[in-house]
């Protein structure tokens, strides 16, 4: 059906949530998805990541209502979504080697759905293989 590369360098909850939503649309439509987490996004993948920050927005009403919806369980958490998608379709999740080295993280320190720790050459290769690249 096609192939997309999603790149996320933000640890902000709203960015990660958006990433997972886009990935879910792609996987359910039989699109092959490759995700590359960089910078803060890698930190969010830590098994022992600190308490997740609330969703932020330039509009206070948006932040308030989205965070309320999250508390009420109306929004499926991005980690849960990605875990589900792994079972459902062709999804590869990778983390940037540079930031894992800086933070002293091994693959075992990251959430189980992370497939590999890779560098920018792999990222470039995936970008060339993909029909579309989306960054968050």
């Amino acid at each position, binding site marked *: *059906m096609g192939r997309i590369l999603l790149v996320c360098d933000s640890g902000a909850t709203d960015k990660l949530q958006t990433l997972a*939503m886009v990935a*879910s*649309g792609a996987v*359910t*439509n*039989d699109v092959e998805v490759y995700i590359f987490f960089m910078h803060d996004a890698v930190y969010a993948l830590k098994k022992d990541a600190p308490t997740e920050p609330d969703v932020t927005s330039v509009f206070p009403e948006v932040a308030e209502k989205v965070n309320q919806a999250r508390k009420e369980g*109306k*929004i*499926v958490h991005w980690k849960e*979504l990605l875990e*589900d*998608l792994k079972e*459902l*379709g062709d999804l590869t999740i990778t983390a940037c080697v540079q930031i894992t080295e800086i933070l002293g993280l091994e693959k075992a320190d990251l959430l189980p759905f992370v497939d590999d720790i890779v560098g920018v050459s792999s990222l470039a290769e995936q970008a060339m293989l993909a029909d579309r690249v989306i960054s968050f």
Partner: protein
Amino acid sequence: MMTEVHSTLDARNLSCPMPVLKSKKALKAIEINQILEILATDPGSMADIPAWSRTTGQELISSEELGPKNFRFLVKRLK
């Protein structure tokens, strides 16, 4: 003539993207040429279930709005 339904997915009270995600799972669980009934309340379903059926090569037999935010779809698994 009534269409024979082989499996029903109750996706009511689930919001996007869960109805489509669960539909995909449910469709995998039935045989080719069998029919999945999907019940949903998410307003996005009216566009999403047909789009998902089209792009994944399944047959959308029907989509109905039974009432406000109350939808029913029949999807035939073709592959």
